């Protein structure tokens, strides 16, 4: 039988972001699949070499649109490691609050986002509206909704505004109240069970073969493989939280981990608000002089953090001048988004293609850079 060629994306409602997969299908079964990235390629790595260390903070959040803060954090960590800079205590905790709020935001979006490929739009409408409340908090703290440019090398850009703690706690309370409703709607939905259970498997060998990290890895290898646990950054070693893990990774498990992680993030934020020093400096200068002449000592380092999709890191090289020499981005979804699509999307049905992209966590901008 003749194979039909189909384009999943870039302008396909099932595709999140400007990404494309070419599928050769036989009936409803995908026989071959080729990822086609690069629609969002902007040459970040080149552009970063042409901007000041400080000026790059405008650029880096844009590498991953849905979760910008991790970029700022990795970049800041890299500079701090190269320059041996000690970040003030309070800044560490503020960073954790920001990062975890961001994690909630993206998990909420992708948890409700499962409504997109499956047709449960109500979930998407709810989750994005609730995510917007987090963006409101971000706006109050950082001055922008999406691209915060808040975590900078040496600390954070501004201290927390007054009274924001109560607002954050209020939001967390609200989310805790809402989460069961999401679970009723999504996780307990029999048709979601029918669609996701035992579908889109990710066996342990595949994890190691591709280099998948994050929820996908943890749900498959039954180990607590989370950068926050394995090599804690900021003050993750001083808060208590659990990371969900398990031995069997199907689409349902991966989706069901998201509310669990949201709850753990809420727990981390609550502890952070409690343990954080109530005042004190939040930023140290990374270098002498004006920002036009901030330099970072020469060296090469690979700072890495846990994003919502897994290990996220930059290879940062400095030659001691006022601009980075080279920054290479390891997008967390690079393995599953390229080799994963090519090797493991075939065999699934067309119906599952966008579900595959969704539950594997493929984020186009961080692949394209």
């Amino acid at each position, binding site marked *: 039988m003749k194979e039909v060629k189909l384009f999943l994306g870039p302008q396909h409602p099932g595709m999140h972001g400007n990404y494309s997969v070419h599928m050769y299908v036989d009936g409803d079964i995908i026989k071959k699949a080729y990822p086609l990235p690069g629609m969002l390629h902007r040459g970040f790595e080149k552009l970063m070499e042409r901007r000041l260390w*400080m000026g*790059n903070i*405008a650029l880096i959040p844009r590498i991953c649109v849905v979760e910008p803060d991790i970029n700022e954090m990795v970049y800041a960590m890299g500079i701090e490691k190269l320059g041996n800079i000690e970040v003030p205590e309070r800044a560490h905790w503020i960073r954790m609050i920001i990062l975890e709020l961001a994690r909630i935001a993206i998990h909420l979006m992708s948890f409700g986002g499962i409504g997109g490929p499956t047709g449960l739009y109500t979930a998407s409408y709810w989750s994005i509206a609730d995510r917007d409340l987090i963006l409101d908090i971000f706006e109050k703290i950082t*001055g922008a909704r999406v*691209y915060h440019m808040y975590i900078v090398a040496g600390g954070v850009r501004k201290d927390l505004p007054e009274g924001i703690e109560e607002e954050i706690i209020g939001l967390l309370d609200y989310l805790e109240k809402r989460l069961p409703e999401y679970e*009723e709607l999504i996780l307990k*939905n029999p048709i979601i069970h029918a669609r996701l259970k035992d579908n889109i498997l990710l066996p342990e060998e595949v994890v190691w073969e591709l280099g998948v990290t994050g929820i996908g890895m943890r749900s498959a290898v039954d180990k607590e493989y989370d950068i926050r646990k394995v090599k804690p950054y900021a003050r993750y070693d001083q808060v208590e939280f659990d990371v969900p893990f398990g031995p069997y990774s199907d689409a349902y498990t991966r989706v*069901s981990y998201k509310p669990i992680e949201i709850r753990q993030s809420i727990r981390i934020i609550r502890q952070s608000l409690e343990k954080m020093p109530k005042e004190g400096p939040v930023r140290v200068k990374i270098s002498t002089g004006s920002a*036009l002449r901030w330099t970072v000592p020469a060296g090469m380092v690979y700072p890495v953090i846990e994003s919502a999709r897994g290990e996220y890191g930059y290879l940062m090289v400095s030659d001691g001048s006022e601009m980075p020499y080279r920054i290479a981005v390891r997008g967390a979804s690079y393995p599953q988004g390229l080799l994963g699509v090519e090797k493991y999307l075939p065999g699934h049905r067309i119906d599952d293609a966008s579900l595959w992209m969704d539950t594997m966590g493929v984020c186009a901008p961080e692949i394209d850079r």
Partner: protein
Amino acid sequence: MTVDKSVFSPIRAWKYLIEKPVTIPKKLVFDTPREASDNYRGFHINDWTTCVGCGICAEICPTNAINMIEIDSLEQSTGNKPERPAIDYGRCSFCALCVDICTSDSLSMSKEYIHLSKDADTFYFLPESDGIHQIDFDKGYDRDEVSELLDLERYEIDETPIEGRNESFIEIIRGYSKEMAIAEASRCVECGVCTATCPANMNIPEYIRSVWTENLEEGVDYLYKTNPLSNVCGRVCTHTCETACVIGNRGTPVAIRWLKRYIVDNTPKEDFERVVLSNVSEKINGKVGIIGGGPAGLSCAYYLRTMGYEVDIYEERALLGGAVRYGVPEYRLPEESVKEDIEMIRKMCVNFITNTKVGRDISFEEIRNTHDAIFSGSGNWIPKKLKVINVDHKDIRFATKFLEESRDYSRDMGRMPEFEDDIIVIGGGDVSFDVARSLARLQKIKNGKINIKFIARKPIEFLAADQEEVVEGKEEGLELRLNRSPVEILVDENNKVYGVKVAKCTSKLSENGKAKTTCSEETEEIYAKEVFMSVGSDPDFEYFSKEMMENLEMDKNKIIVEENGQVKGYPWLFAGGDIVRGPDIITAVADGHKAAIGIDEYLYNREKI
């Protein structure tokens, strides 16, 4: 995990059929869009009254969105460029780095965030205090000390400790260490406001950059492009550049003078010489005579030599340098430094004819006849006198003469000048502090204690002298009697000066930004054995012929010249330095440079004819 699926569980979502939606009402979207948060990064606003047009916002902008637009209605002034930033919203990423780095605190962002248009040109806009649509919005994002991107505090320079400083003429400032110099240089933002303010228009940002990049040879090259007395100016310049420095708007200005000095002090001598002498050209047909070996003359000589002219300098005193060598005390400008600078000029094969006073040892006409052009930078050496009673008393001493003596003493070329152990210094400018502080040192050396009263009309903040001088003078034991205007020199029956009668004054800032001083009837008497007066000086034009004196256009004892230093009516005569405008070394250097260019042009044109 408990198995939990039920057809009925999703149906619970139906409860939202009767609950209120979370949608933001249309009114809050369209009529009065929701107010953004307090530090929202909306559109830019710029307070034009505080903006200095430094252009740092354009410099830091990671998107190249900011262009500086020249505004015709604004005027260039110290520390102020007639330019204002225009922002391209086809570029801007709303990162607010421009706000964080704004040197004058004028740029900030409002809570306004809606601009829609079919016309792309409207997205390029010149922010003023009222936003893009001339609608008042609250201020959004603004810089605070955490988000600060400038380094506002000056890095400590190594100084001689205060104790014992007044016991000798050893230089106070020891200079920057390498780390400190680089740190200080990194504070510079390369705006170039200083360049416009510097009389010599030195390439300040460039040489500071060369300190930062540790390429001092390049720095020397930049220095000598506009100033051949870098060693001197690295120590005693009046540094109007630092007054203008935009970092000074919110912090302490970059120590431009000390960085210049750092370059000179830390470049290896042979490199220094190589760089400087590489500019010298082969001699061409043309000979210029220079009257006065002061900064103006030396500068003129240097640049004439780089252009290839033969140069003779006529100097009245035994050593070249003029005010530099005879007017500035050793503790500020050590002999070594002056020597180095002058030696460098001598090495360029400039003829130094010392101990030759024009008009006395050689006539002006003779110089005129043997040279193609003349540059005069003879300087101000005749002291001015205050209009007070008994001012013509023979025992009153004046700054120029005393400084000369004291300088000769400190370089072991003369004996210690005479002075009493109880002295009043009348003044207010830098020179008067030079006098007072030199006297203090001499007193300390001679008597072991200091007794000097310093009288000035104005309070500290309005004194003409550098604030540093005032502070250091105080530290060294001067007794400041400010806000007092002398009205009479007290002379006793033996015709001996015994003090000064002063009127009490008050000063306040007037509308034009200058201090206005008014003195009351109330007087007091301050007693001392000797009075030094240092209230300025006048030029000595003895060497000009009578006819010339009549023809020269003068304004308050200053010769009026063309932009290039050419004296009106005498195309072969150029003048510069104190006899033209004063009041400081760097102006003289600048005049010398300009005159050199003017002379070159004049001679070139003459040859053509």
